[in-house]
């Protein structure tokens, strides 16, 4: 790093970006594409304009939030309740971004680049980032990550358009299958990324808690199951850790 003329030519930032772009062509991109075909067709079913569907994929960049927003707008839910529900469904992004920060080393980068990297974070790139970034040279990580994100975003936006065009043409049995991709992929990803007892407890408490909390019928079931259930899982995990120590 200090030598004015390094003995080898390190990869340029553009070359790292292209490597990231190439790395995006893998299984997560396939699942992602199928997922967004389903989401695109739901957007069309609810009568949203195509441009809206594409912008939603690009700017929200979170499948569950996207689906909740379309479904809520379609069923005429109140805006405050909808913003709250979407917000809760996206809390997961906070710990996901935080856990990627040590790999990205953003402190020397422009804040806009940091914001762009943070925007790219979603479940697919998070799983891929944690897997691939350790193999990338420190100075190449940001462009690599941006390339990876560009590839996944492009795949998702293109698939949204395809799904939008296919709405009403895809047999419903397949449309149902595409819509089930998000829940099953996210659920299994939760098991893959769960590290502590509290994480594993949170999966079960959140899942069954939602079914229980929806009986209240006040539209706040995600708050009860997520914030309440997650805190309960944390408390149980902490009690267990304290017992293990003593």
């Amino acid at each position: 790093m200090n030598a004015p003329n390094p003995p080898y030519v390190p990869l340029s930032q553009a070359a790292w970006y292209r490597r990231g772009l190439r790395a995006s062509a893998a299984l997560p991109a396939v699942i992602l594409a199928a997922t967004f075909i389903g989401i695109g067709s739901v957007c069309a079913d609810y009568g949203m304009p195509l441009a809206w569907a594409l912008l939603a994929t690009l700017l929200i960049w979170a499948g569950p939030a996207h689906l909740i927003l379309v479904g809520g707008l379609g069923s005429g839910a109140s805006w405050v309740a909808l913003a709250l529900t979407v917000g809760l469904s996206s809390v997961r992004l906070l710990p996901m971004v935080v856990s990627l920060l040590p790999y990205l080393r953003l402190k020397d980068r422009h804040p806009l680049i940091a914001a762009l990297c943070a925007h790219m974070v979603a479940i697919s790139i998070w799983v891929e980032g944690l897997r691939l970034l350790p193999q990338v040279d420190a100075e190449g990580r940001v462009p690599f990550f941006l390339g990876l994100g560009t590839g996944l975003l492009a795949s998702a936006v293109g698939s949204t358009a395809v799904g939008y065009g296919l709405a009403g043409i895809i047999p419903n049995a397949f449309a149902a299958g595409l819509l089930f991709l998000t829940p099953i992929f996210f659920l299994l990803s939760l098991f893959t990324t769960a590290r502590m007892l509290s994480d594993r407890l949170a999966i079960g408490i959140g899942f069954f808690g939602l079914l229980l909390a929806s009986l209240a019928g006040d539209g706040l079931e995600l708050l009860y199951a997520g914030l309440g259930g997650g805190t309960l899982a944390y408390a149980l995990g902490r009690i267990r850790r304290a017992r293990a120590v003593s």
Partner: protein
Amino acid sequence: MTLIGSDLTPYLALILLGVLPTEIWRWLALVVGRGLDESSEILVWVRAVATATLAAVVAKLAFFPAGALAALPLGWRAGAFVAGLAAYFLGRKSVLFGVLAAEAVIVGSAWWLGVR
């Protein structure tokens, strides 16, 4: 004006109800995340809340679904979770196996029941 208003309403809703409530967590992570130790208690709690919320979202998407999934009886949707989890754990935690097994149950049962 009304026409313009009604045309722009979905986009306003997209920004206010979709983009901001999602993006705020990514920005917040940049603000609070630097120097936050990954094993700190606050982050363990945040991760538990995030995990529980996502699991709740999964249940919401499957049991209170939008679109074609709603036409499939609830028992089959629950069965797809069981099949997916069983394949995931039997297949040495392979996400691909789990997804394929669950999808086989959804598409197969929907086809068989005539959800077309």
